[in-house]
């Protein structure tokens, strides 16, 4: 299985196009952490349980993702700087359909 490219815009606005593995059952939050594109303590605080919103990101490409789960929807309803394009990156598994996805990490809060 080959890796795919995903573009992540960090909190300083810097664009990083990184290789995302399809076979490590990783999600986008873990991808951001593995490339150290955000301060470790500022993202994925709850470990990826949709319980803290520290990994909120905005989808900036036209990809159609699976709908938000109830848990994700509920957590986003308590988060700040939420837009229509907001997602919790820990709830987005890396799949072939995300090839060339562009996301922006939401401000730290």
């Amino acid at each position, binding site marked *: 299985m080959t890796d795919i490219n995903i573009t992540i815009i960090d909190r300083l606005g810097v664009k990083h196009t990184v290789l995302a593995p399809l076979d490590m059952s990783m999600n986008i939050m873990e991808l951001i952490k593995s490339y150290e594109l955000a*301060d*470790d*303590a500022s993202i994925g605080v*709850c470990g990826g349980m949709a319980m803290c*919103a520290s990994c909120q990101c905005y989808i900036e490409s036209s990809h159609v993702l699976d709908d938000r789960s109830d848990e994700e929807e*509920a957590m986003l*309803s*308590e988060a*700040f700087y939420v837009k229509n394009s907001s997602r919790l990156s820990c709830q987005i598994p890396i799949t072939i359909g995300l090839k060339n996805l562009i996301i922006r990490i939401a401000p730290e*809060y």
Partner: protein
Amino acid sequence: MIKTDILIIGSGPVGLFAVFEAGLLQMKCHLIDVLPKVGGQCSEIYPKKPIYDIPAHPEILADDLINKLMKQCEQFQPGFTLGERAMTLEKLENNSFLVITDKGTEHNAPIVVIAGGLGSFEPRKPLIENINKFEGNGIEYFIKEPKDFTNKNVVLAGGGDSALDWAIELSSIASSITLVHRRNEFRGALDSVEKVQKLKDLNKINLITPAEVHELIGEESLESVIIKKSDGSTIDLKTDFFIPLFGLSPKLGPISNWGLDIEKNAIKVNNSLDYQTNIPGVFAIGDVNTYPGKLKLILCGFHEAAMMCQSAFKILNPNKKFLLKYTTVSGVKGFDGSHKQAPKSVVKTIS
């Protein structure tokens, strides 16, 4: 002044296990935690989530793990300073450390262990312009003394367990409770949601959804809040308190000014030896530390706690000989006079 052998900053699983390991070596511990309860992330963020990688526990809920760790260390009678943030660390002339909290509580110990996880939890404040002005004058982010809200009008905001639980608890003592949430759905435990529904039907809780507290009004202290509903209408509500409960986010906080070597928001330690920091006598264990190959796992923190205690013992007792004891052989002697021990085997002749 509180005096102890080992002062532990943070009462999460790793800090609590350190109490047990220290107790086996006859060292007494006192713990400071910014939260009003023990357990750290396990209690605050995911109490009802199962953990699957605690050795010998195929599955254990985070708050059960904390309860068991409290039970395991209780005979070593740890002291607690809860709901206070450790602000300063100062080395005294006798080589011991003085740690003072934001409430001014003084702690003195020859060994300081930072088991602070991701840092101290700070409330996530809603983005309302003048919110800082009313902090302590009508705005609270934690509820330490429910009694403070007796016969008061209280507005709570949030959709998780803490908002629901406090709405339920305060509804019996406050003059009025209003719960504001951005959605009609709540994220909390099902029985809490059902209880709030019942209290709403009994007019004990005034529920305003989907809506947000938009503005805060008052001279010196908070007098009313303007609530904006999702349809654009607004409600001007007189209140004594507004308590936003939007969760907590961890910040390394004051610890970062203690002169410790910090890398990537974590404290650098010597992992080939004893998890001591660059300040002799100050250790860092669990998620708060970093070293090559660090894994932020509870089980790794337990190992670090045991290693730290061996080294702390040598600092406290420089000339004393000792050998690692197995609890299966020596049992566990508590500071409360208790002595747990394996029963002696019965020797019987077969004739």
